[in-house]
């Protein structure tokens, strides 16, 4: 035990150490004529041959460009590339608003079960009962967790969920009150929110948050005066990590006025079993299964962005949807007001599968003190964020000095006088072996460092991270050059982003990719 403590103590203030790492050329540079990494299934057709009756103009003569590489080379190549990545499995990844929690391995095993993997999307519903049960059960559990009445699992990512939700709102208002085409969005919103509104043909009106970092009902009341607001789109907890205390009052104002409330549920990891979208008065919500419900981020997807709605909006959901008829499950399309389809098939089913496995593993939420449960996960996510907030307070500027939810936001205000900025702090963190927080977001805070630890980290890790942050704050004073030089222990030193735009090289081409 004491040795462990000592070891932890040692690493907590030390830098990461470089490991054996190979420079790896692109797969195209491994290519040599005549190699192949694939074994074709046996030809069972004997000497059956056929001359394509296809016009010569439509045939391809050579696949000249494609690489020619053997299997061992491919495995080594991609294994080496993997070693050039930072990941949750290898280290602490406190990327704010991304909820980089542990991705359970049993869920990966479940996601490869052949009975799910080899089911064709055009199979008869009677032959899909297992898969439909997974989807329906997940929908029902998401309803229980959020208090909403219906869910669609079709959206393929969080932003895709936003688009689906805003399309639902647009379709609803088109019938109720077609002049309503504006969406109120607080200045703390994710960038996807305004972009999703634009794609749904809705106009964005930005609302200012008050000095305490949340939205005031007065601002909303004023914005509603013209009767042209279709909905408000709010993230709760917001991107400052603060709970929107007045949300219920704001929901009531919107509803009295004829507008709806959309909630971006990207930060739902703070809320499970504690509060719910329904209690807040939310009409439409999207969740990110790849955040709150532990499905892996995969280097940027696949995600999954189920959308939940109240009863009143059911008819607008995408088709098809799953219904339970006694013991049987079926797919239905009989929704004349539906916004239509948002994806070729039924959503990212393997994310549904993993999320359901996660919820079943976490199990019921007892009142506090229970050892299992989604609520405990949310509680610990909040505790961890507040711990980091408490430990770094005073060393970094804390623009909103009060208890936070699952993430906390600092700035570089105390380091600026040494000419050390948020980006430098982030890069120096790499040298201490950590993934940086989300930086320069939310935009309402100048040069933000947004830290989301999640509930799956140990106290030792949180301490090591805080020690590193404090060491960097000290270095900013004592040795700013060291910080500016960072990262020096990462696989690459600072990368020239400007060159990437000025001299775009977006693919490999023979003889053109030397540096």
């Amino acid at each position, binding site marked *: 035990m004491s040795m462990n403590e000592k070891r932890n103590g040692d690493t907590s203030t030390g830098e990461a150490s470089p490991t054996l790492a190979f420079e790896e050329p692109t797969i195209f540079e491994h290519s040599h004529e005549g190699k192949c990494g694939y074994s074709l299934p046996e030809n069972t057709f004997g000497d059956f041959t056929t001359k394509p009756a296809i016009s010569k103009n439509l045939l391809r003569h050579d696949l000249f460009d494609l690489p020619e590489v053997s299997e061992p080379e491919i495995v080594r190549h991609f294994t080496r590339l993997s070693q050039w990545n930072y990941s949750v499995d290898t280290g602490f990844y406190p990327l704010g608003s991304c909820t980089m929690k542990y991705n359970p391995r049993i869920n990966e095993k479940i996601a490869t079960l052949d009975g799910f993997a080899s089911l064709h999307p055009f199979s008869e519903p009677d032959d899909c009962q297992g898969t439909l049960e997974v989807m329906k059960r997940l929908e029902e559990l998401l309803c229980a967790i959020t208090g909403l009445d219906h869910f669609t699992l079709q959206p393929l990512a969080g932003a895709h969920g936003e688009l689906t939700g805003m399309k639902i709102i647009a379709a609803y208002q088109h019938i109720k009150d077609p002049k309503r085409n504006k969406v109120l969005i607080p200045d703390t919103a994710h960038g996807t929110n305004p972009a999703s509104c634009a794609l749904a043909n809705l106009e964005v009106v930005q609302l200012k948050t008050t000095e305490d970092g949340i939205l005031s009902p007065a601002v909303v009341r004023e914005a509603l005066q013209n009767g042209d607001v279709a909905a408000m789109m709010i993230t709760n907890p917001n991107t400052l990590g603060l709970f929107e205390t007045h949300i219920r009052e704001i929901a009531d104002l919107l509803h009295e006025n004829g507008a709806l409330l959309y909630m971006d549920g990207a930060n739902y990891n703070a809320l499970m079993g504690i509060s719910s979208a329904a209690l807040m008065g939310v009409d439409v919500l999207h969740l990110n299964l790849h955040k709150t419900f532990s499905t892996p981020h995969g280097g940027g997807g696949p995600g999954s962005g189920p959308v939940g709605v109240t009863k009143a909006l059911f008819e607008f959901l995408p088709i098809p949807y799953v219904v339970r008829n006694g013991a049987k499950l079926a797919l239905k399309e009989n929704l004349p007001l539906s916004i239509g389809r948002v994806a070729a098939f*039924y959503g990212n089913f393997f994310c549904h599968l993993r999320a359901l496995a996660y919820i079943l593993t976490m199990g019921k939420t007892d009142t*506090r003190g229970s050892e299992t449960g989604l609520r405990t996960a949310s509680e610990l996510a909040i505790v961890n964020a507040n711990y980091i907030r408490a430990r770094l307070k005073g060393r970094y500027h804390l623009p909103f000095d009060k208890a936070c939810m699952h993430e906390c936001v600092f700035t570089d205000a105390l380091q600026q006088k040494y000419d050390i900025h948020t980006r430098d702090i982030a890069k120096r963190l790499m040298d201490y072996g950590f993934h940086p927080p989300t930086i320069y977001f939310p935009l309402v805070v100048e040069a933000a460092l947004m830290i989301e630890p999640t509930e799956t980290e140990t106290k030792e890790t949180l301490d090591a991270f805080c020690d590193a942050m404090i060491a960097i704050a000290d270095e900013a004073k004592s040795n700013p050059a060291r910080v500016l030089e960072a990262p020096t222990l990462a696989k690459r030193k600072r990368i020239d982003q400007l060159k990437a735009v000025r001299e775009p090289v977006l693919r490999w081409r023979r003889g053109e990719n030397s540096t």
Partner: protein
Amino acid sequence: MRYLPLNTANQKALFKTIGIESFDQLLDSIPPAVRFKKPLGLEAAYSEHKLLHHFQDLAEKNHSHVKLFAGGGSYRHHIPAIVESLISRGEFLTAYTPYQPEISQGTLQAIFEFQTLACQLLEMDIANASMYDGATAFAEGLLQATRVTKREMIIIQKSLHPHYKQVLQTYYPFDPKKIIEIDFDRSGTVNCDLLHKEILAAGDRLAAVGVQYPNFFGIIEPIDKIKEIAAAAAPKALFVTSTTEAIAFGMLKPPGGFEADIATCEGQSFGNPIGFGGRCIGLYTVKDSYIRSMPGRVVGQTVDKDGRRSYTLTFETREQHIRREKATSNICTNHSLLALAAAIHMTSLGRQGLRKLAEMNFRAAEYAKSLFREKKTVKLKFSAPTFNEFCLETTEDVDMLFKRLIRGGILPGIRLKKFYPDLKSSFIVSFTELSSKSEIDEFVSCFQ
């Protein structure tokens, strides 16, 4: 709970540093009215053992072990074992979007290679880091055409995959009447006279001609002729293509060969199981000049401070996190891991493998065709050439036929009556390198 590492002592220590005695003190900002009063109504936690058995049971409730002759945008192919093994590496699986390039070179280089492979497959200049699926990729492609041309009208085929058409209708922000559908002729290809007429009628309001090939019926559209008509009648409209079966380009001349402006493709056939359509991935490629209006993330090559070759996300000023409501799309998360699977499979196939694989798919379908030609109760619906799927018309009641074959463990394809009332007795059958001669023989022997 095994995923939660904080023990009671840890929690006490954390509380002390935070300066609280109970957790509730952290919830002051949540008014009592919006707090849960009672526990969520969930079941007791499953053990790992119980969980695995539960899902094994559910998986077995699916009747997925059928002899499969359905395609329609989701194709069963052999996936090399290395694909799952490599994409399961935690370093790929549990990383996020590579915002910090210095510690994300693995994902970045893999995406850069994926972009290159997508360009090579489709013979295009630039690819993005992937879209959600073939349907959303095609819809976004047509939307990009409306942005580039500042026009709204688009022309598509009636033989476009019906789900793709529905997704396009959902995404399309203008008057739905501005989507013009061109009927197919008796051979199954797009009616070129009608196409010509509609292009002329649309005139300078036309943003794009969007063509899927092979089309939903499996037919290899005369893409050369279609492009010629479009180029002559509407030189400023963009030529946008979609493909549901990427393997086809081992044999067919790709869209770049016909000067497509934007070429999209469903990439599931590479490296991803059919899984109820749950592992799709959209390929999105454009000509050089359309980079700035392209949706989605893109990785570029650059150097680090020491001049070493490096990769980074680039052209981000197009994107939602910077441009907000003026962004080229709202897409943020894409399908990175599935793109990696596709890249690994494409690399395994390589120059020779992909060609041979495409030929095997084609041969299996042609073999089936040769047998179906001998049958009385079923005939080929269209005469134009196909790749690995084609359309049959039966004299039987199609529902009865499906019932009969499904009972015998065969999924005979996709019925068309739901999508095309005129084709109520027709269905599409699909063949891949996994359709063996004996399976096909058995399938065809179910017909008289």
